[in-house]
């Protein structure tokens, strides 16, 4: 796959279709892969990588890249295409300036999950028949592939590319995923239990903004939390309220726009399951206003920018679920 991608990228660079390529660059170890822009065939040969760890969603980079001179080739996984489409819909990327090659999605691996098994000193990771052979300073270790899969991939919603100029590999389908399981589980807890759960999670927050800055829906020119005139600007949670505030408002601002790409939870250094907030909104929107998948198209009205005269009343919150 990696080779096919490099070869196609070289062709497109050579025939002038694009003048650069966005993809992933290999790192020091097996897993520390960085999104990068490649300008030449040599750079591609030297550093371009596509493997079980290339999980980063590069669509957000295209906000800036697509406004530069010339066309850029972007390799997008199915989940990334949803993000890209949503950005197109919101006029944040210039579609004409991006040549999209759809590539197969995950499941991708999570180095944290390998480390959580107590495996340290990781030098290399190989997938042999869905068993990971991990070469470490302390000898070789093995673990089942699926135990190291990223959470976001474990509950993958779609293998379908919703936008592309060409595909490498085959296009897949929208999947029946179990992605709302944990949301449901929380909904069925008592309010006190839910409160305790989230307090436990949010109290870990260090407001590093990784979730926000990686989020392809959070592309504001200036975030309200960075804007001293917004009245809610803050840099660090000085109180539990501010932890709540940041995550509620962030989830609200991306409600109906979040494609559920799962990057927020992937990058959280404190392992806060932030995607649950987004999924709660998605689940509510689906059940209250009809199925809606952000990024599926570029024309539909976002649920929060739309209404029906017979929408349910807000009191529905009082009438359902567990108190």
């Amino acid at each position, binding site marked *: 796959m990696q080779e096919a991608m490099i070869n196609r990228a070289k062709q497109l660079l050579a025939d002038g279709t694009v003048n650069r390529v966005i993809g992933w660059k290999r790192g020091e170890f097996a897993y520390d892969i960085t999104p990068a822009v490649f300008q030449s065939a040599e750079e591609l040969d030297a550093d371009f990588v596509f493997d079980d760890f290339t999980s980063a969603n590069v669509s957000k980079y295209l906000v800036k890249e697509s406004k530069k001179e010339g066309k850029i080739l972007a390799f997008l996984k199915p989940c990334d295409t949803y993000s890209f489409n949503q950005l197109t819909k919101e006029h944040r990327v210039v579609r004409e300036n991006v040549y999209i090659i759809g590539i197969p999605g995950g499941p991708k691996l999570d180095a944290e999950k390998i480390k959580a098994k107590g495996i340290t000193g990781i030098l290399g990771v190989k997938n042999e028949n869905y068993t990971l052979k991990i070469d470490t300073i302390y000898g070789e270790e093995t673990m089942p592939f699926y135990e190291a899969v990223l959470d976001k991939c474990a509950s993958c919603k779609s293998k379908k590319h919703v936008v592309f100029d060409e595909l490498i590999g085959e296009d897949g389908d929208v999947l029946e995923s179990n992605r709302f399981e944990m949301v449901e589980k929380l909904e069925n807890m008592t309010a006190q239990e839910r409160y305790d759960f989230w307090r436990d999670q949010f109290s870990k927050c260090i407001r590093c903004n990784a979730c926000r800055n990686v989020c392809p829906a959070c592309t504001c020119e200036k975030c309200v939390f960075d804007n001293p005139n917004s009245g809610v600007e803050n840099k660090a949670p000085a109180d539990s309220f501010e932890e709540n505030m940041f995550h509620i408002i962030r989830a609200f601002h991306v409600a109906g726009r979040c494609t559920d790409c799962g990057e927020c939870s992937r990058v959280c250094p404190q392992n806060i399951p932030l995607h649950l907030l987004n999924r709660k909104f998605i689940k509510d929107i689906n059940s209250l206003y009809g199925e809606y998948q952000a990024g599926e198209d570029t024309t539909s009205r976002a649920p929060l920018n739309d*209404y029906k005269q017979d929408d349910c009343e807000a009191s529905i919150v009082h009438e359902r679920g567990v108190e």
Partner: protein
Amino acid sequence: MQVNENKEFQPLIVAFCCNWCSYAGADLSGTNRLNYPSNVKIIRVPCSCRVNPMFILRAFQKGADGVILCGCHPGDCHYTSGNYFTRRRMTLLFSMLDFLGIERDRTRVEWVSAAEGAKFAATMNEFTEAVKKLGPNRRLEDLRCRKQ
């Protein structure tokens, strides 16, 4: 004289009212001398759709124990569709607050027309009682703002 140590908890209620229906409805309940607790403080907004979730959280942060949002009945919005957006926004916001374990009865949306002075007063009485039962807002408060 005996001083009552256990003073009854008096919640602070912030009510956002749209200028055209609910604020007028509140005025009407005043004109008709319909009582509701002085715990309720009204903020006038042009339309219920002007109310940003940030305002509601801000009220809780600064010490409110309950926030209620009043607007024109669906279909009667002065701006034709404002309250429809309000309804979706607030449904989702309240659902999220509930999801985070914040007591449901601290927030509410109520449609009150300019003619419904009695409904306004009744709603405020009911809501204040409901919040009183919940006690002070502890789950969504900013400790720094707590009054000593």
